[in-house]
């Protein structure tokens, strides 16, 4: 056998044909345990369709999808609407597709900072809260393969960064494979092992750095986009707690973050400060 037998999912030349056209075609991709694979591409480029082939929701009309038969999947769909008629609390939602022990559910909710919402009705959550609850449900299952379809939509920039860090942490803890779909071309997290850039077919793939510098990527998104493909690497000295307070690096908790005293090693922050400083001098 050519492919490694421990791959979670292997797509070979996979394609989906609907209403007279190919949504995606010729997709080759593998996801291994403990690996984060990110799918990027413009709208309608077949990112979600590719993920659905990998999940087994769609059967490829061409090519093959080989999925490890015993694997447990955790899926965070792009859209999920809960009707008013459906009474569903967050804690009941955790065991939607399988038994999850109380501890597993609580751990997952604590990790995504949604534990305080466990008795809330899913319908009443804000966009950002709902995204975190969706993620909590998926990881409470202790999946072998975690598939996230645009998990950062409706989440503000800080939340987005926190979510990417959390995904990396989950991967490290569970040693699961992660298939991540991102609409955000500018922030591809540093933890991504491989980026696959789609545009109806695999346009280019490789490590984030290779893809960013590839000619195909530049042709697809333009030179400006490629210069903006930030490979996000930074560390925090404080974190925002769910109730709005701040826990600082030394463990103290305050109501506000005093931004003057912070030490973000993130370059963009420093640049902003420098600019502000220059403006003051001018």
């Amino acid at each position, binding site marked *: 056998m050519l492919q490694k037998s421990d791959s979670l999912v292997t797509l070979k030349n996979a394609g989906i044909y609907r209403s007279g056209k190919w949504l995606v075609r010729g997709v080759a991709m593998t996801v291994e345990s403990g690996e984060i694979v990110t799918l990027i591409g413009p709208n309608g480029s077949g990112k979600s369709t590719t993920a659905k082939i990998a999940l087994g929701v769609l059967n490829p009309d061409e090519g093959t999808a080989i999925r490890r038969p015993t694997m447990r999947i955790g899926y965070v769909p792009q859209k999920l609407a809960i009707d008013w008629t*459906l009474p569903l609390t967050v804690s009941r939602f955790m065991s939607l597709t*399988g038994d999850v022990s109380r501890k597993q559910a609580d751990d997952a909710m604590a990790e995504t900072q949604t534990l305080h919402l466990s008795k809330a009705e899913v319908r009443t959550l804000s966009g950002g809260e709902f995204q975190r609850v969706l993620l909590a449900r998926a990881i409470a299952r202790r999946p072998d393969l975690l598939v996230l379809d645009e998990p950062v939509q409706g989440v503000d920039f800080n939340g987005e960064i926190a979510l990417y860090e959390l995904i990396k942490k989950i991967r490290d803890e569970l040693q699961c494979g992660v298939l991540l779909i991102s609409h955000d071309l500018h922030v591809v997290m540093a933890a991504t092992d491989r980026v696959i850039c789609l545009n109806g077919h695999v346009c280019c793939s490789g490590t984030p750095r290779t893809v960013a510098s590839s000619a195909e990527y530049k042709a697809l998104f333009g030179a400006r986009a490629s210069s903006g493909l930030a490979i996000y690497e930074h560390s925090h000295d404080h974190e925002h707690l769910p109730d709005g307070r701040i826990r600082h690096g030394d463990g103290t908790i305050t109501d506000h973050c005093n931004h003057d005293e912070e030490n973000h090693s993130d370059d963009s922050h420093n640049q902003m400060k420098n600019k502000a400083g220059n403006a003051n001098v001018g």
Partner: protein
Amino acid sequence: MLDDFFSRALIAGIGVALIAGPLGCFIVWRRLAYFGDTLSHAALLGVALALLMEINVTLAVFVVCVCVSMVLLVLQKRATLSADALLGLLAHSSLAVGLVALAFMTWVRVDLMGFLFGDILAVTPTDIAIIWSGGIGVLIILAMIWRPLFAATVNVELAQAEGMKPERANIIFMLLMAAVIAISMKIVGVLLITALLIIPAAAARRFATGPEQMAMLAAIVGVVAVFGGLFGSLEWDTPAGPSIVVAALGVFIVSVLPMPAILKKKQHQNTRKTQQSRGLE
């Protein structure tokens, strides 16, 4: 006790309410009200066929309902008309075909009103046996497919991705619907079955905090409606089937009243009254 027509009606009605509640929740959650209507209208065609071929009415209705839901599945996949147009087409044409077929059978004298609006007071011990054994069967199967069916109700793709086999659950659910309509047709009639499925579930929603709880509450509301409707029909000499639906509607209206606001107002009035009386002293 079974000698008394009224106790038989009560026992049969309770049996139907207990199955209609949980199943009705799924109808409400999945927006299948019109689908329920379609199946129950098609039931009349089943009645006509049963009389024509001299077979058991409940069985014939079940078979026709299953066929109609399968036709619907096929037509939906071909998708030329929208789903609601297809349902309307199937519902009313099967009702019309049923009525025409009955009219052709001049040799059978059939109480059409009994099939349209139910004839709960003519329930026989055999009917009760069918309702309760069939009903228990339906509830056991529903409990077995509960998790996949509920997961598919929340999101089909999520359910499928996580190995819940939603297609299979959906087909079993359609069979259960057909069974419930066949079982409960005699109680409320083909025109009112959907009401018995939907109204208790809708009334239960306000007080439910979880899906399982809502299913149980809907069953209880249904039983209350059966009691209220039957005693009301005995008291005021109204038709039994429609009276049950009216009683269910009553429970629903109570459930949507803004209770906290009313209670507050009363308290407010009470305190004002005491204040006034104190003032008088």
